[in-house]
C-alpha cells in the first residue's frame, strides 16, 4: 500500500508547481493544478480505503517507512506513514471537503491579484494536514502540526496589507505556539517513557509502561492536550479563532472549521491508548470541552458578525468533540468531527456566498431579506443550520446525540446537562444568524456598538449592484456539502449497535469506547431533540417574530465580551509581558548597549586628543626624536 505516500505528496507537488511557476500558466491553469492534485489525492484515498477494507480487521494497520529520518543513540525516528481506518477516514474528510473548498475558491478568489499564491498556500496546507493525519509517529505528526499552523498564519494574513488581517495572523501563530510548547514537551516525554514516539508501539505498550493514573501518563496526556487546546481553540487558548475570520472565507471553511482545528481531537484519538491510562487527564479534556462548548455558544449569541458567529460555533462544536474523547467515546468524536466538517464547511461557504453577493459585508445588522435574491444559498445555509442545531435527520443530530448519550451512559450527568444546554444555545444562535441574514428586512446599517466598528468591506468588492446568486463553480460545492450534510448521518445511523463508522474504526479504538448499554436511548434522543426544537423555537420567537423580548444590559455586556476572558488575558498575561519587554528594552539599550557605547566613546575621545600629536611638522618630529635620544643617553650615562 506504499502508494498512500502520494496522498500528501500530490498536494505538495501542486504547491511547488503553483508556487514556482503559478504566474506563468494563468488563473485557469493554477486552479486546475491546485484542485486537480487534491481531487487526485482524494482518489488515492478512496483506493487506500478499498484496499484497507479488503484486509481482515486485525491487519488494518499498515506502516510505510519512507526513510530513516534521524537516529541518535537508542532513539530512531523513521519517516513513517501509518494507514489504518482512523487515518483513512481523516484522509477522506480532508481531501473530500478540501477538494470541494478548492473548487469553490476558484470562483471565490477569481478576482484576486494573488490567485497563484492563494492556491499554493492552500495546497501546502492540504499537504501538511495529510501529513498530520497519516503520520506514523508523533515527530512526523509534528511536521504536519507545524505546517498547518504556518499555512493558517499565511492564509489568515493573506490580505496582509490590511492591518487587522496581519495582526490576526500573528495572533493565531503566537497563541497556537503557546500550545505547541506543550505538544513538543509531550513528545519529549513520550520518548522518555516509551523510548519512541511511534503510534503503533505506544498503543501496544501503553498498558505495560504506564501505571493507571500515574504521574507520567497524566503529565504526558495533559501536555499533549495543551497542544490540542491551542490548535483546536479550546479554553483558554481559543481567542485566536474568531480573529482568524480575517482570512478569505474558503480558508475559514477549510482550515478554521473542517480540518486544522480538529487536529487536536484527532491527535487525542490517535493517542487514546495513552489517555486511557490517565483518567484524570481525560476528565480534564471532557470538562474543558463541555465548558468551551457552552462558553462559545453563549458568546455567539450576541456577535454581530456572521463569520464570527460561525467561528464561535466552531469553537463550541470542537468542545463537543473534546467532550466526546474525554468520556472515551472515540468513535463519536471522530463522527462529530466528520459531520461537523460537512455542515460547518457548508455554513462557511454559504456565508461566503452571501458575502460575495453583498460585496464583502459580514455584519449581520446590514443584511436581511436575502432569502429572496439568494434562494439556493438560503436553503443550503438552512440545512447547515438545522444540522448544527441538532435537528434530525441531518448529520449533526446523529453525531451530537452520540456524544451526549456517551457522556450520559458513562455517568457524567453534569457533563451531559452542560452539553444539552449548549445544544439549546446552539439552536438559538444559529436561528438568530439565519433570521438576521435571510429573513428580516434589511437593517438601516450598523447601530453604534460598544465593541467599536467591526471591519466592513472585507473582501474585494467589485461593484455589486444587487445581490445575486454565486456562479455555479461556487454553488455546486455548496450543494455537494449540503447533500453530505443530509446524508452524513448514515455513517453513524444506529440506535442499538455501533454504526458504520464505529464498526470501521473498531480495530483502532477497540479498547476505547464505553459500552452503549442500551436502555433509555430513546428517552435521551427525545430529550435532546426537544431541547434542540425548543432552542429553534426560542430563536424564532426572539429574533424572527419578536414575541420574546427583554435582555439585561449586564448579560449582554458579559456575552459580547466573551465573559471577559480575553480582557483577563490582556491584563494578566499580555500587560505584564509588555511591561517586562519594556524593562528589558531599557536594560538592553541603557545598560548593555550603554556600557559598550561608553567604552567606544572614551576611546574616540582619547583618539581625538592624541591626534594633536601628529602635527605634520617634520622638524617637530625630529626634535622629539632628539629629545628621546638625549633622554636615553642621559639614562645610560648616569646609570
Amino acid at each position: 500500500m506504499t502508494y498512500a505516500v502520494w496522498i500528501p505528496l500530490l498536494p505538495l507537488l501542486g504547491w511547488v508547481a503553483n508556487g514556482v511557476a503559478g504566474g506563468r500558466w494563468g488563473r485557469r491553469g493554477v486552479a486546475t493544478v491546485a484542485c486537480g492534485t487534491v481531487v487526485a489525492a482524494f482518489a488515492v484515498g478512496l483506493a487506500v480505503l478499498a484496499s484497507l477494507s479488503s484486509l481482515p480487521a486485525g491487519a488494518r494497520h499498515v506502516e510505510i517507512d519512507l526513510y530513516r529520518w534521524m537516529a541518535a543513540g537508542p532513539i530512531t525516528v523513521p519517516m513513517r506513514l501509518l494507514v489504518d481506518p482512523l487515518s483513512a477516514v481523516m484522509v477522506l474528510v480532508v481531501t473530500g471537503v478540501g477538494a470541494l473548498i478548492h473548487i469553490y475558491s476558484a470562483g471565490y478568489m477569481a478576482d484576486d491579484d494573488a490567485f497563484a499564491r492563494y492556491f499554493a498556500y492552500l495546497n501546502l496546507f492540504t499537504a501538511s494536514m495529510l501529513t498530520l493525519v497519516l503520520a506514523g509517529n508523533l515527530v512526523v505528526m509534528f511536521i504536519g502540526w507545524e505546517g498547518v499552523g504556518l499555512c493558517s498564519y499565511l492564509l489568515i494574513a493573506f490580505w496582509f496589507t490590511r492591518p487587522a488581517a496581519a495582526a490576526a495572523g500573528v495572533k493565531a501563530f503566537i497563541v497556537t505556539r503557546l500550545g505547541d510548547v506543550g505538544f513538543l514537551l509531550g513528545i519529549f516525554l513520550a520518548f522518555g517513557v516509551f523510548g519512541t514516539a511511534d503510534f503503533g508501539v505506544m498503543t501496544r505498550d501503553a498498558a505495560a509502561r504506564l501505571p493507571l493514573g500515574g504521574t507520567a501518563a497524566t503529565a504526558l496526556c495533559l501536555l499533549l492536550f495543551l497542544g490540542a487546546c491551542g490548535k483546536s481553540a479550546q479554553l483558554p487558548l481559543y481567542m485566536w479563532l474568531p480573529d482568524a475570520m480575517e482570512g478569505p472565507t474558503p480558508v475559514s471553511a477549510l482550515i478554521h472549521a473542517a480540518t486544522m482545528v480538529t487536529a487536536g481531537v484527532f491527535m487525542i484519538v490517535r493517542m487514546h491508548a495513552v489517555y486511557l491510562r490517565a483518567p484524570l487527564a481525560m476528565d480534564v479534556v471532557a470538562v474543558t470541552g463541555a465548558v468551551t462548548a457552552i462558553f462559545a455558544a453563549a458568546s455567539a449569541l450576541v456577535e454581530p458578525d456572521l463569520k464570527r458567529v460561525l467561528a464561535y460555533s466552531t469553537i463550541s462544536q470542537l468542545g463537543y468533540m473534546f467532550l466526546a474523547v474525554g468520556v472515551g467515546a472515540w468513535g463519536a468524536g471522530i463522527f462529530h468531527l466528520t459531520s461537523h466538517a460537512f455542515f460547518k464547511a457548508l455554513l462557511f461557504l454559504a456565508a461566503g456566498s452571501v458575502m460575495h453577493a453583498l460585496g464583502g459585508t459580514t455584519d449581520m445588522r446590514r443584511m436581511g431579506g436575502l432569502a429572496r435574491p439568494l434562494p439556493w444559498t438560503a436553503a443550503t445555509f438552512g440545512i447547515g443550520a438545522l444540522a448544527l442545531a441538532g435537528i434530525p435527520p441531518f448529520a449533526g443530530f446523529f453525531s451530537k446525540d452520540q456524544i451526549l448519550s456517551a457522556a450520559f451512559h458513562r455517568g457524567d450527568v453534569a457533563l451531559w446537562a452542560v452539553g444539552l444546554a449548549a445544544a439549546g444555545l446552539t439552536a438559538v444562535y444559529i436561528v438568530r444568524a439565519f433570521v438576521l441574514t435571510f429573513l428580516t428586512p434589511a437593517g438601516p446599517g450598523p447601530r453604534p456598538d460598544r465593541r467599536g466598528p467591526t471591519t466592513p468591506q472585507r473582501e474585494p468588492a467589485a461593484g455589486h449592484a444587487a445581490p445575486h446568486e454565486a456562479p455555479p463553480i461556487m454553488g455546486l460545492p455548496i450543494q455537494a456539502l449540503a447533500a453530505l450534510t443530509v446524508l452524513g448521518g448514515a455513517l453513524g445511523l444506529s440506535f442499538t449497535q455501533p454504526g458504520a463508522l464505529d464498526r470501521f474504526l473498531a480495530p483502532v479504538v477497540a479498547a476505547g469506547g464505553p459500552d452503549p448499554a442500551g436502555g433509555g436511548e430513546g428517552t435521551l434522543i427525545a430529550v435532546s431533540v426537544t431541547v434542540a426544537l425548543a432552542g429553534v423555537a426560542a430563536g424564532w420567537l426572539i429574533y424572527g417574530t419578536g414575541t420574546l423580548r427583554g435582555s439585561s444590559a449586564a448579560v449582554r455586556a458579559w456575552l459580547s465580551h466573551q465573559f471577559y476572558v480575553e480582557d483577563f488575558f490582556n491584563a494578566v498575561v499580555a500587560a505584564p509581558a509588555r511591561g517586562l519587554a519594556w524593562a528589558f528594552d531599557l536594560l538592553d539599550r541603557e545598560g548593555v548597549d550603554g556600557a559598550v557605547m561608553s567604552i567606544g566613546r572614551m576611546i574616540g575621545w582619547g583618539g581625538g586628543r592624541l591626534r594633536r600629536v601628529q602635527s605634520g611638522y617634520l622638524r617637530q618630529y625630529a626634535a622629539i626624536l632628539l629629545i628621546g635620544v638625549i633622554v636615553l643617553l642621559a639614562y645610560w650615562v648616569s646609570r
Partner: protein
Amino acid sequence: MSVPAPLYLSLSAVLFALGTVGVLVRRSALIVFMSVELMLNAVNLTFVTFARLRGGVDGQVLVFFVLVVAAAEVVIGLAIIVNIFRARETVDVDDVDLLRG
C-alpha cells in the same frame, strides 16, 4: 706627525651637532637632507677613529655599509624631493603636512 684621537672625536661631535641643528632649524628639504648627510659622515668619522684605535677593521667595514646605504637613501630622498617640488612648487618641509592628524 699624528693627530691624537680625541681631536677626531671632537671634530666628529661638532659635525654631528651641526647636522642636528641643521635638521631642526632649516626648512628647505635640500638643506635638511644635506644636514642628515653631515650627521652620517660624522658617525663615519667616529667609526674610523675607533677602528684605528682598536687596530681592527670592523669599524672601517661598517663605514662602507653606511656609505652604500647613504647613497641609496640619497637617490630615493632626492627623487621624493623632486616629486614634491613638481607637485607643490615648494620644498619647504613645513608646507608638506598632508598627514597632519
